[in-house]
């Protein structure tokens, strides 16, 4: 039985901020991988990325006019477009499911330093989705090459460029998703917002034929993502630098709003 003396203030040293952050990150990692949803989204990302790599390799192998010497890394660059949605879903649901189930209440009770918690959540969720996406991009390129090893090549510098670009797009997109999840605190609302910004509005707005709508579409994160991954956007004014800046601004803006809502508002109201 514990005695009164046992419950005196713990005399040990107070953990440093870095240690508290490291612990919170470790807890976030456990939190992320102890629900099935994460595994489902990861599996969906794997199927999309590696599956499309295999299909691309198979196409190249069966092509009557084989694309000799073409880099196999084209496959993960293209496959990153659909794969990003599985990763965005993983990041977004990791945040919003806490609000849907009110699990955010014990979460913030155990980690009441909200800025530290915010940093841990962003680092772990965005880092995990990005790392997973980058790993799958490598596997996708290798899978495409394996299906047509005598046709497709696997240059390392191209690989670094494609995987690096995909990782950037995944990271910026997932940061946007995490930020929107923290702001909206609703899975449905945040999913709609992310899909509008990444997929629907970049596709739809230019179709109306108004110049201002096209200009709006050019500054949406989805347009920049497509440009970075495929080099195509339908807009002449986009450059690699402007696309990177656009994605960073959207990600930083969403994260800032999400951080403000997290640190200023009640836990789940």
């Amino acid at each position, binding site marked *: 039985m514990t005695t*009164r003396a046992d419950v005196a203030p713990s005399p040990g040293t107070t953990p440093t901020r870095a240690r508290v952050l490291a*612990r919170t990150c470790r807890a976030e990692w456990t939190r992320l991988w102890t*629900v099935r949803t994460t595994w489902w989204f990861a599996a969906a990302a794997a199927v999309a990325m590696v599956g499309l790599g295999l299909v691309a390799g198979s196409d190249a192998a069966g092509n009557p006019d084989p694309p000799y010497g073409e880099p196999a890394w084209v496959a993960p660059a293209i496959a990153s477009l659909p794969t990003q949605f599985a990763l965005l879903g993983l990041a977004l649901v990791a945040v919003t499911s806490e609000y849907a*189930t009110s699990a955010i209440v014990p979460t913030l009770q155990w980690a*009441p330093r909200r800025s530290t918690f915010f940093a841990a959540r962003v680092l772990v969720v965005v880092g995990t989705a990005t790392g997973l996406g980058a790993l799958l991009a490598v596997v996708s390129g290798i899978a495409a090459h394996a299906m047509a090893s005598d046709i497709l090549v696997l240059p390392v510098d191209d690989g670094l460029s494609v995987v690096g670009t995909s990782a950037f797009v995944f990271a910026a997109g997932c940061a946007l998703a995490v930020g929107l999840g923290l702001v909206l605190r609703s899975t449905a609302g945040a999913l709609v917002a992310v899909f509008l910004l990444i997929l629907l509005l970049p596709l739809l707005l230019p179709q109306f034929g108004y110049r201002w709508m096209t200009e709006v579409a050019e500054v949406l994160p989805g347009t920049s993502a497509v440009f970075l991954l495929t080099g195509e956007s339908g807009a002449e004014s986009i450059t690699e630098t402007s696309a990177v800046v656009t994605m960073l601004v959207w990600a930083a803006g969403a994260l800032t709003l999400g951080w403000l809502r997290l640190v200023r*508002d009640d836990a789940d109201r």
Partner: protein
Amino acid sequence: MIEVRGLTKRYGDVTAVDDLTFDVREGLVTGFLGPNGAGKSTTMRMVLGLDRPTAGRALLHGRPLTSYAEPLREVGALLDPGSMHPGRTGRNHLRVAARTNGVPDERVDEVLEQVGMASAARRRIRTYSLGMRQRLGIAAALLGDPRVLLFDEPVNGLDLDGVRWIRGLLRSLADEGRTVLVSSHLMSEMQQTADRLVVIGRGRLVADATMEEVLAGLGGRQVRVRTTGLDLLACRLRARGRVVRQVDEQEAVVDGSDAREVGDAAHHLGLAVHHLSEVEQSLEQAFLELTGDAVEHHGGTEAVSRTSVEAAR
């Protein structure tokens, strides 16, 4: 020790907690009472840093909870047992808590054993009954072996064995010198477990006193008397400033008096007394008296007696 100072929480025009000030002391079970919507849960959430106070502050051992690097070692709390991810297992729920606060995994198994959840620990929370969730929440509260414990309606969903267990647990935690704050709408439960009471109504402090003071504070004792000369006796007692409420043709309840005074008065008047007893106050009664005018939603025909809220102080 918990210090609540001028704590206020407003949601638009609604004031959920209004300038609340009280202390919760070590070594005691402090009951936190109030009608539904009185602001008990909101107060607890503000103490835990979950809700932002509009004004005022809540301190744990003189510091806000956010200043603690390992909050679970300072304060453990059971709030809504439904606030858990249903897809996670009970054990993993606790592992996340443990990792956030640098608590070793072995402690997770210890507390699961302590609350009787070891055999269900690897099942997903969605398969748990309310009572099992309640026990898991209590396990999380105990995880860091904290000095301060807050329990919001801990007996909800527990069977009789569970209720007995929680009573014993609360008592032993207080006896170990911990600060224990328990909210409940079950007055009888509080009467059995609490040493001290903080009563609130409509977000305001109604009483902050020991159980005895609350029970005795309703204008003092009451005496029930049955006599054939009730009118005469009532006149005599009213002349002495006592409040006499006739409940039957020959029976009355006298507030603020005792059996000796009423018996002597009847004797002086030469009246035959057929019944004379001091009425034992129950906490239920005390609670209604204290919060009668502080209940936000009355039932349509419910008559609630109104007594000065200061009476119990």
